[in-house]
């Protein structure tokens, strides 16, 4: 499997998109840390950019890569190799390259300028988000019949998680504001990996004090080790379940 992933990685590196992505992250991170006086403000701005850009790049790149390597997949299917191994090697290659790009592009500046709990939380969630959205990309590409549909579904998923979901949550909170919603909000947060990442990092920052009563409950929950385990666990579920569905779909597919 490692052998196959190596070829996948080699192919990805040659396309140079990953290198451009790394450079983009490096430039954004460095300039934010240099522009903002306060490093925690810089981390906040960085967080907002990452939560939009990282899922988008991961899901679109993952989908396009899948369709571009269709020939490779076809070739491998005639070899003595199981389908599971083929698709997981592809996943490993894509996830590894995207995660490395993130850990270099954002990791180095964060280690230099903001080496603390918030910075580490940012790196951890960014890494996990990459895995999650690469999984979703693979699920979308395996399930869709052609390239246009696949990329369409991928973009829709991103749109849903990055923008629409928040609107829905606001709607629910607004309409049921007479009821105690703290626990439900927590559940709703877990149903969107991007929101989960945001809440998790925000509560590591000083700004969380400004968020009112609810944040006291959250701070209790996310502030300690259970919070880290909860976030990591839910995010891993978000990565594993779509990937498992993608592998299952791929095994049954006619090529």
């Amino acid at each position, binding site marked *: 499997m490692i052998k*196959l992933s190596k070829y996948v990685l080699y192919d990805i590196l040659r396309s140079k998109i990953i290198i451009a992505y790394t450079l983009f992250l490096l430039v954004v991170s460095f300039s934010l840390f240099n522009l903002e006086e306060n490093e925690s403000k810089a981390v906040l701005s960085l967080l907002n950019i990452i939560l939009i850009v990282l899922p988008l790049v991961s899901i679109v790149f993952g989908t396009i890569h899948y369709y571009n*390597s269709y*020939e*490779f997949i076809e070739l491998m*299917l*005639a*070899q*003595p*190799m199981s389908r599971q191994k083929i698709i997981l090697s592809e996943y490993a290659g894509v996830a590894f390259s995207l995660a490395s790009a993130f850990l270099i592009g954002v990791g180095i500046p964060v280690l230099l300028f903001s080496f603390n709990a918030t910075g580490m939380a940012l790196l951890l969630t960014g890494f996990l988000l990459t895995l999650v959205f690469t999984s979703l990309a693979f699920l979308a590409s395996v399930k869709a019949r052609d390239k246009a549909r696949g990329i369409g579904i991928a973009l829709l998923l991103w749109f849903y998680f990055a923008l629409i979901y928040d609107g829905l949550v606001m709607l629910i909170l607004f309409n049921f504001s007479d009821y105690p919603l703290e626990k439900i909000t927590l559940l709703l947060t877990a149903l969107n990996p991007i929101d989960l990442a945001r809440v998790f990092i925000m509560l590591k920052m000083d700004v969380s004090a400004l968020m009112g009563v609810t944040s006291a409950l959250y701070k209790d929950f996310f502030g300690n080790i259970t919070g880290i385990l909860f976030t990591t666990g839910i995010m891993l579920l978000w990565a594993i379940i779509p990937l498992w569905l993608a592998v299952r779909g791929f095994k049954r597919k006619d090529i």
Partner: protein
Amino acid sequence: MITIENISKRFRKLQVLDNISAQFEKGQVVSLIGPNGSGKTTLIKSILGMVRPESGKIIVDGKPVSENPNYREQIGYMPQIGRYPDNMKIGQLFEMMKNIRNMDGKQIDNELIVQFELEKMFHKPMRTLSGGTRQKVSAALAFLFDPKILILDEPTAGLDPLASEILKEKIIREKAKHKLILITSHILSDLDDLTTHVMHLQEGKLMFFKDIGTLQEETGEIKLGKAIAKIMKGEMPDGSWINNIFQLGQTEEKK
């Protein structure tokens, strides 16, 4: 070596394979013939595990193909349209295949690479190749690991007369080594000197599977094209497609 038991496959409304059973043994050269869309390629892809039949079993060397992909070590497959990773160079492609099949340093059969003069083109990326050169690469790859079973889907389509002759001679040499060879082709004159058995599919149904001796006896014809044309005329009025090919074959011979 290959046992096919009652396999059926439908793509939505279209019944591509309808309850097909057959038994192929080593030393046979089986010609799969039938009009376009009669299910030849689907049958081949089912043997390779690329298409999953709805019902029935395919057994290669005593093991069902759905269980373990290792049986594909025994198979050399030349697809109808060879599709390869665009960025890869011919040389890299061969290196990769050897590496993936764990054949580094082991004895390989590069006769076709030499005869097709592919070595001169090792530095060319796959995307720049013409259809014919791609076919040559596909053929060389199919024979590379000296497999016990060769599956060739339209091997001579797109090849120039010289290359096509080289390939035919290679197939004859492999036949002498007591291998099982499955060929589909519309050019019946190409199959004449090779075939030991003929399998005729039409609209997903197996019309007949006979050895060439029986065929010649039944029809009183020596040439494969004529023999089949005779059967088709007797059996069904809409077998006119074969006449065209038969006539084409004749005019070619006159030249």
